[in-house]
């Protein structure tokens, strides 16, 4: 929607003074944008420049010298980093796909009025409202081997439990389960909104044509939800990279690097190994991934309508 009001001339907006001095029209906008721009410069633009500089330089006692891509070569040669990349890819797939499928199922079943539906929507949404560390604190006991909630009840059913967080083959899956539990309700919200935007006539027409539930889902609902899924998918992918708080409480990246995710790796290099070059190179790689992801989503949807 193009707003007629967007096209008002600068002179009118900034008062008669601007008509005499064309550059005076810039003073007010820049003054009002100033506070935001200062903070953006300090904490969004500058850190990108700094991290690129840090990644391509080595600081020694004799001074700083340019080392080109040496930090990146060392980074990609580090088996722990390779493992972190792989883990994060698995974690992204393992969280995004089930969360979106479940969110769709929740939304389809709970769309509409009624107290029971409202209550169940709230149940699915509650995990979104608690901090990720709080969720991790709860799951610490759920995943506890032997006497924990899951193992205790498995044993009562005569099944063997497992050391969910201590077994390198299971730990990443356990973390993934926690994330799906935490985030599915958030994505459900957007799909519910998307469902309500589908005109009733479309569903009724499909019903009259004798379409069964799966056909209606396949040919009416899912096509209408495509923009919603594109948007929610990007959010879910971003979350898979940027939210690692539960790793700190539950596994600290272990056992044997099984739950080391990119951001946790960066934290470790910076705060525990004090390897600034390595941490910076890993940050640059992560930023590159995020940029590629965003570019992909922008090219597939029409992009934020703000880009006009």
């Amino acid at each position, binding site marked *: 929607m193009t707003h007629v009001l967007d096209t008002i001339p600068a002179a009118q907006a900034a008062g008669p003074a601007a008509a005499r001095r064309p550059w005076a029209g810039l003073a007010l906008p820049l003054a009002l944008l100033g506070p935001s721009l200062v903070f953006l410069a300090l904490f969004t633009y500058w850190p990108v420049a700094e991290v690129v500089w840090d990644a391509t330089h080595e600081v020694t006692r004799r001074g700083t010298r340019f080392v080109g891509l040496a930090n990146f070569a060392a980074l990609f040669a580090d088996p722990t980093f390779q493992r972190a990349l792989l883990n994060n890819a698995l974690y992204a797939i393992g969280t995004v796909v089930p969360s979106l499928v479940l969110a769709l199922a929740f939304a389809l079943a709970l769309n509409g009025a009624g107290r029971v539906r409202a209550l169940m929507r709230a149940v699915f949404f509650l995990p979104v*409202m*608690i901090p990720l560390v709080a969720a991790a604190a709860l799951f610490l006991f759920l995943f506890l081997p032997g006497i924990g909630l899951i193992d205790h009840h498995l044993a009562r059913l005569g099944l063997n439990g497992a050391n969910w967080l201590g077994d390198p083959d299971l730990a990443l899956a356990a973390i993934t389960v926690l994330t799906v539990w935490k985030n599915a309700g958030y994505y459900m919200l957007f799909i519910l909104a998307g469902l309500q935007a589908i005109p009733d006539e479309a569903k009724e027409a499909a*019903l009259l044509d004798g379409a069964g539930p799966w056909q209606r889902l396949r040919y009416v609902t899912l096509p209408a939800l495509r923009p919603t899924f594109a948007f929610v998918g990007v959010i879910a992918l971003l979350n898979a990279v940027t939210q690692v708080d539960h790793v700190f409480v539950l596994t600290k990246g272990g056992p044997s690097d099984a739950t080391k995710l990119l951001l946790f790796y960066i934290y470790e290099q910076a705060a525990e190994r004090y390897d600034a070059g390595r941490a910076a190179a890993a940050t640059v790689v992560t*930023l590159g991934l995020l940029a590629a992801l965003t570019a992909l989503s922008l090219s597939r949807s029409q992009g*934020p309508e703000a880009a006009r």
Partner: protein
Amino acid sequence: MSATSSGPVTREVTPHIARWVVIGLALVWAVPFWWMLVAAFRPAGSGADASLLPSLTPTLANFAEAWASADFPLYFLNSLVICAGILAVQLVTASLAGYVFARLDFPGRGILFALFLVQLMLVPVVLLVPNLKTIAALGLYDTLPGVMAPYCATAFGTFLMRQSFREVPRELEDAAMIDGAGWWARIRLIYLPLTKPALVAFSIVSVTSHWNEFLWPLMVINSPDRRPLTLGLASFTLSAEGMQAWGLIAAGTFLVSLPLLAAFLIFQRRFVNSFLASGIK
């Protein structure tokens, strides 16, 4: 909500099965919360940590002990200061920038707006290593302002305010201009009062995300007495885990989660709409 959307009048089996599956999943989803409540009110040493049946002799002892063993009131205050501080600055920066992008026309507006939107992708938490250096250089390491600073400019807030300022009838501003109102008076007396829903929506999203934040404060804060709730809960949990004090962990988690959970349950509609607004991109 129309009746047709709450289920067609057919005798199809699939949607019914799906509905029962979702009801089952809702029960599964509620289990961690249910355990938290049951365990938090259970007397310590009853040896039934994994039971989901409420204790017949509920007690507040776990809460008392959690309250006493970690400095939760102080953590609570720190979280409150951080969230309020971030929000106060954000409301100013986002309103000013939103007004500029909604109503002023000047060369380079598109480029500047794109520069703002970059922040949606370069989430501050990914930039934690270089940002920590900046914070240290500014002398803000181990301070609450250091936790707040990277969030003071907000692309999301600017975008949201720009959208809602555009809905305000232009004639109102023109009339005020004729009366000699300056830009600040026009924003304060015309735009802000007419865009309260957007301001509330933004506030809810902002406070929720910063109340729940962990990694960035972990980087910035060193002194135990400056920890926000999330950091306090993490260290409290790790020490209680050593003592196998699961009831204590449940009580601590409950205390930390309660403010936002309660706010959500009371103002559900508002929260849901706010989170939906965060998806307007």
